[in-house]
């Protein structure tokens, strides 16, 4: 880590915790994760003992759990060569000269202005966001809504935090959940009081201080009875990071009659392993929707889940992946019907091009007694060339007779006739391909907040332009 990164980090901690001790940063530059590093993280954050112990238990589980042998190829991850904290500060200190040329080329092709390029490449900060955040925070506080980074959530609302934290995704769930539990930092902590509707989407990038979008972010959302919230994380811009592992955990608790929508758009640089566990519990009459768009990364493994715990709960997952050159997107969805008259809908769309690989992996489970439950699963794959690949693994476990289940899957290619048709109207071949792809993902883009929809369309162009060059 560079001297200036240390400086920033120091100031950050000094400001947040009144803590200032240059000597203690000797530990911070060490790579790898062990008991000492975990203790250090916890101490730096001034956490209560229970959290430190939780982290240590999780570390033990992480070390004992074998690497998953399904999904994508994880053999390239070198756990000992990773910095397990201070990521955000480091990211801001990156140098434009270090940004890979393929990303710069892509910016050139799209004609993105210089200032914007730096932000897109992660070498510049977004200005004025602090002010925006400040105003929104005030408005939310008046409604009783808590919207904090997760570290602050633990500090300021210890009881509420502890009551829900890791209840849906315990460290023992999987190796990467254990890793996150041991090393977590940053993410969002949100509580919406009963009956409160947060009308504007809450966006993670409002909080773009050093806490945002860390490597091991941990998000916890609690929607109390009858409330509504839409949370948006990520950014359509390609996130350039020298860190090779993004391992997040997201838990969403939707109490009776509430509705939570969680939208993710991520576009990691092509060296990143993006391994995320997302799970929601929907109680009586509650609705949880995951809208999940994954672009970039070397390998993404992500299967947002909704557990429908009580009658009338509804889960919906809209997933889209874009697998380009050298990329494997192993994504999908899980829905578990544990109560009568619950319903779910999974829509998965994948695009593979230039030898990229997209996998849909889904689980649909209906427990005994979940009578009258309904589910529909639709998986559409679009292959843009012969070298690319698409696979579908839809697992279905039904232990109840009285259910309605629909499953459809399709694989399509951009037909020569489609290209000819569009070209006969004056579009060149690249424009024609972009248009077909844009149409394919339209059902998802339509669900995004407007500014994201605009960016998403541009992002598709970016992906396609980037892959052609």
């Amino acid at each position, binding site marked *: 880590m560079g001297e200036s990164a240390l400086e920033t980090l120091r100031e950050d901690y000094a400001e947040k915790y009144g803590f200032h001790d240059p000597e203690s940063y000797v530990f911070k530059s060490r790579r790898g994760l062990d008991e000492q590093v975990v203790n250090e993280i916890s101490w730096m954050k001034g956490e209560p003992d229970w959290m430190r112990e939780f982290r240590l238990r999780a570390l033990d589980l992480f070390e004992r759990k074998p690497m998953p042998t399904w999904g994508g190829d994880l053999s390239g991850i070198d756990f000992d060569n990773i910095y397990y904290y201070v990521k955000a500060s480091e990211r801001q200190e990156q140098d434009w000269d270090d940004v890979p040329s393929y990303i710069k080329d892509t910016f050139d092709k799209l004609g993105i202005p210089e200032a914007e390029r730096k932000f897109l490449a992660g070498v510049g900060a977004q200005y004025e966001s602090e002010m925006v955040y400040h105003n929104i925070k005030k408005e939310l506080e008046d409604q009783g809504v808590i919207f904090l980074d997760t570290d602050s959530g633990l500090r300021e609302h210890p009881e509420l935090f502890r009551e829900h934290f890791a209840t849906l995704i315990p460290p023992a769930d999987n190796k990467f959940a254990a890793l996150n539990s041991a090393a977590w930092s940053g993410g969002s902590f949100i509580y919406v009081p009963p009956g409160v509707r947060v009308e504007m989407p809450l966006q993670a990038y409002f909080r773009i201080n050093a806490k945002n979008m860390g490597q091991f972010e941990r998000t916890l959302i609690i929607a109390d009875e009858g409330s509504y919230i839409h949370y948006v994380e990520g950014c359509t811009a390609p996130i350039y990071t020298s860190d090779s592992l993004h391992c997040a955990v997201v838990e969403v608790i939707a109490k009776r009659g509430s509705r939570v929508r969680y939208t993710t758009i991520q576009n990691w640089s092509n060296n990143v392993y993006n391994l995320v566990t997302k799970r929601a519990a929907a109680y009586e009459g509650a609705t949880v929707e995951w809208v999940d768009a994954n672009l970039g990364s070397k390998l993404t493994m992500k299967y947002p889940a909704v557990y429908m715990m009580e009658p009338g709960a509804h889960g919906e997952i809209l997933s889209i992946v874009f697998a380009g050159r050298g990329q494997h997107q192993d994504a999908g969805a899980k829905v578990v019907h544990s109560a009568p008259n619950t319903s779910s809908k999974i829509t998965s769309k994948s695009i593979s091009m230039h030898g990229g690989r997209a996998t849909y992996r889904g689980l649909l489970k209906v427990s005994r007694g979940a009578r009258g439950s309904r589910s529909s699963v639709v998986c559409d794959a679009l292959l843009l060339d012969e070298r690319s690949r698409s696979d579908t693994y839809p697992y279905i476990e039904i232990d109840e007779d009285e259910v309605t289940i629909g499953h459809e899957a399709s694989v399509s290619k951009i*037909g*020569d*006739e*489609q290209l*000819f*048709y*569009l*070209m*006969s*109207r*004056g*579009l*060149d*071949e690249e*424009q*024609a391909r972009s*248009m*077909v792809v*844009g*149409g*394919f*993902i*339209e*059902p998802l883009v339509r669900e995004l907040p407007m500014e994201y929809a605009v960016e998403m369309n541009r992002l598709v162009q970016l992906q396609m332009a980037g892959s052609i060059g």
Partner: protein
Amino acid sequence: MRVFDSRLWLCYNAAARWAMERQRKRYGDVHAMLQVRNLHVSVDGQPILKGVNLVVRQGEIHALMGPNGSGKSTLAKALMGHPGYEVTAGEVTFKGQNLLEMAPDERSRRGLFLAFQYPVAIPGVSLANFLRTAINVRRKAADPDDKGLPIPEFRRFLKAKMDLLQMDHRFAGRYLNDGFSGGEKKRAEALQLAVLEPDIAVLDETDSGLDIDALRVVSEGVNALAGPDLGMLVITHYQRILNYIKPHFVHIMLDGEIVESGGPELALKLEERGYTWLEGKQNGRGSG
């Protein structure tokens, strides 16, 4: 309903043709937008067109008739540059330029249009969005610094064209050809023709798959677009569309050649006598 007097039409038509001939003699063939000479086209190595000759000028409406499999649609696709249609001999010029050297998108941007017999669906792309893109790529090709047609202006333009074709404005919000009925597809093609304002339009079996009402509606749309700036080649299997769209010239294609050309009376003759009287006319020279 307006009753059409075919004799009157013939007189008018003869006069129009005479005027054009005279003009051609005086000024040279300046209006020959599309000139096809001895065109041979193969599909999968199979010769389909065997020496087609045809000239279409602005302001003219040509009907190309012929039985199934005679090569009419092959001509349409080859003119637009479909990669599956291989030109093995002959030449085609468009506004004096070699059309065959151009990619389909360039042909389009230069003013050639094909209304498809079977337009494909592009799910998720609204007709309006598609048309705006098509307009903007043209503008950009003409002027690299063009920023595109402003959306409000485009909306006004599109609405005017839809009104001309008596279309419901909501139609523009639907995904291109996705779940369209046969009639809707053909109307969408007519709208594209109206919006893109080509110099020469080829209408490939625009009447196929339409019931009589839909045929009338689409034909009225096409007629509304006809005018001195647009040359049209209307490809049809049946004579019935010619009850609505009045051609100046009629050509008959048999087995990859135009075997007979004439005025509208030829279509009537064909209706009375079928194609059989033309057999044995192959290897004759069609003239346009």
